[in-house]
């Protein structure tokens, strides 16, 4: 069955979605840092990306269209349908639960 999505993993998935076509290790890390204020090591990001790919939420391919990096290709990640599903599910669960907390209720906050 589908495995649980960790909080960090969710953030990474979102970043990949945001970066749409330009998501690779370094760019995801920068995005995380800027948007979520999370400062992480490069290795942690890569590890998570690989893990998410193993879980089937991301797919990847090697090689950028242009050779900008002094000849080094990079691995670009993209969301799979399963990944999108997972994100949607998470959001749905969260919203349902938020609605049940009185102090967080959108209408009353």
């Amino acid at each position: 069955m589908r495995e649980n999505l960790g909080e960090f993993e969710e953030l990474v998935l979102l970043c990949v979605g945001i970066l749409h076509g330009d998501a690779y290790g370094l760019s995801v890390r920068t995005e995380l840092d800027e948007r979520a204020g999370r400062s992480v090591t490069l290795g942690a990001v890569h590890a998570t990306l690989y893990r998410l790919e193993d879980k089937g939420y991301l797919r990847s391919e090697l090689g950028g269209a242009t050779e900008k990096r002094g000849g080094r290709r990079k691995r670009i990640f993209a969301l799979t349908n399963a990944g999108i599903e997972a994100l949607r599910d998470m959001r749905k669960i969260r919203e349902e639960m938020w609605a049940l907390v009185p102090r967080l209720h959108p209408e009353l906050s």
Partner: protein
Amino acid sequence: MKARHDGDAVPRGARALLERFCPPNVFEELIGDLEESCRSRRARDGRFRAWLGCWADSLSLFRAFTHRRGAAADHPRGFIMWDSYLKSGLRTSQRHWGYVLLNVAGLALGVACALLILLFVWEELRFDRFHAESDRIYRMVQAEPDQWDTKRQEEMSPLFAQALVDGVPEVEHVVRFLDRSPSLISRDADGADLRVYEEGFVYADSTFFDVFSFPLVHGDAATALDRPHTLVLTEAMAHKYFGGANPVGQTLLVNSVHPFEVTGVVADPSARSSLQFRFLASFASLREIPEEAGMLNSGWGVTAYPTYVLLENDAAAIVAERKIPGVLKRSTDAEHVLASRFGLEPLLDLHLYSKAGNLLGPQSDVRYVYIFSVIAFAILLIACINYMNMATARAAKRAREVGVRKVLGARRSQLARQFLGESMMTSFGAMVLALGLVLLAIPAFGRLVQRDMQAGIFAEPLFWLVILMFWAAVGLLSGSYPALLLSRFAPAEVLKGRLGGVSSGATFRRGLVVFQYTISVALVACTLIVHHQLDYMRTKKLGLDAEQMLVLPLQSSVVGKPSPVAQHTEAFRDELSRLDAVRSVAFSTAVPTQRSSRFGTQVEGSDETMFVFAYNVDPDFLSTMGIDVVEGRGFSIGMDDQSAVLVNQAAVRSFGWIEALGQTLPVRIGTADRTVMGVVRDFHFESLHASIEPVVFMPLGSRLPRYIILRLDATDLPATLQRVAAVWDRFSPEHPLDYFFLDDAFERLYQSEDRLAGLFGAFTLTAILIACLGLFGLAAFSAEQRTKEVGIRKVMGASVAHVVYLLSRDFVRLVGVAIVIAVPIAYIAMSRWLEGFAYRVDLSWRTFLFAGLVALAVALATVSFQAARAALADPVKALRYE
């Protein structure tokens, strides 16, 4: 857009690390990201912060790629493959079961040998450790100062004990011993008529149980040896004389005269004890036995009592030792006592290191421990080398398998793991087999080394740890080379049938063969030389004729009342002479191979003390023993001058005389001055380890002899013995006849060399066997490899002989190299060993040649069998061989 080669942003060390450890498929993307990141750090932060951050990023990447799966068809967990390896391993084994058997057998043999030797070494190293205070027990030794490093003695004066206790506070207890083996033991008069001359009859001080840990089964350790005329039996002796009953309170008669009360039963001393005994009699008894009391009271000059001390702690030895000269000075003026050097040797060093010998039990030498350890290692090495050789040789056969596996995606590490796994499996099988072999062989091995070996070691956890290490070492060692080699094959080449590029390891294999045979040749040479020396020692002219010499020790001139035989020597001699088979009879107080008294004297004008051996003999002694008189005359019957003496040639040399006859002896023996009336040819009275020492012969006079010596006819010795015994019984019905043959006694001196020779022989055989197994396998393999070549040659007209020659040539050359290397090694080793003998054989080139030829012959036989088989095969089939 510029392509900037800014790899310099990444610190060199980090880059190197990543290159080394990162799998190639992920490397590119990771290093790319890293470079980019470092560049932007450089731009953004200061140099140091950038450097720090970059390193942090680099190290974090390790986490990333260890999780990353590799190329296609990868398994996330390695051990999934093990069962596949197991299957393919077993199938491979089944196909080549002959080779596998050879391999396992060779390994098992090697491991079994090594284990047996280690068993022996372990036993040797654990001597005397069972005493609770073993590290505080020391033995006193003495020697002439210039002989301190070569020859010491353990026999001390009895007065030392008290002097030490009084004068040296570091000494807690002292135990003195006196060995009176054999003594005649008889069960007291209630009809049971067990009368036996027993060995292991030792007198010991009452402090014996305070110092040594020999547990008592019956009786009280605190008092068992207090009173005179008491003794303690070992369990074996208690059983022998009293059956199963508790013998405490019963009496045994010693030498037919002295009743001793049994005050305890002690457990039999372990085989690992330097102190061996069967009867422990109380030292206090000696005061009540007239002849012994005399010796006890004769002061510092008499040395006969091994003395052990218990120190208050093990560091006190040096302090105690230094106090000894002071103690002596306060106790005596005797010059030759004060001139000797005294010391304390730890009990734990006794068995392997002491130069003082051991009157009370066995002794060995640490050199043997080293030698045997080296041999064990060598044999193990040979066995492992075999495996390595066989596995790599067969690599070519498996090259295709390797190629296929690689194409299917096996990584080098996986292949290596597979082959290592196979070798671990083989070595496991070999270990099991080896353990079985060891269990079976322990009794026979025990006989070979003349030691009571037990399988007790199997209970030690340390042993199993060693076995585990063995298994790991053997498996890894043997499997390492094949694993490394095989995984290197390039699949494309291999599948095409070529091992191209990578050498199939032939050079290494050749090197291994040379190594194996070097060891074998060296061992053969050493064995031959050891045997040669032993033979030499046995057959060397001793200077006397030891054949058919029957010696009858007369015990009672020392303890108890004099033997009736000793009192009626002339009548006894007449009776014996009447027997046809008795050629001559003589009496003396000493006999070669048995310890005899020594007298010491100060050499005039120097500090040295000189010792001479003293023999009191009757006029027939020299002729009976076959010893020549080279100058002057021997003793004759009814001689006037009872103070005349004979000396041997060694004595003449020591005293520095040019003309010996008429000289006065510088050594004081008794009251009168002694003049020399004759010189006798040197003869050996100790083992050939020692050079011949000075001996003085004095007339027996009215002294009671201690030995009767008979020269017998060679015919029908058992019958003669019976007749002698009959005569004896007429004179001495109470004491049964005790006797030994002189040549047997000489033989016994060489027990440890005998044992060494036996061991060497056995292990040489094993080493050669293993080396041959290896060669056999290699030769078979090589022959198979060249099947096509052989077929073609035969078709072209080569004779069988020529083919055999071609196939064997290579191997014979290797053995030749091995011989060249082995000879100097063996030469050096044997020279060192022979230095321990004052009389030794020469190392002749013939021996080494012979050893080399033996190795060559064996190798040839092994190889040519395979070669012949290949040569005789049908060439048609050979050519079709794929």
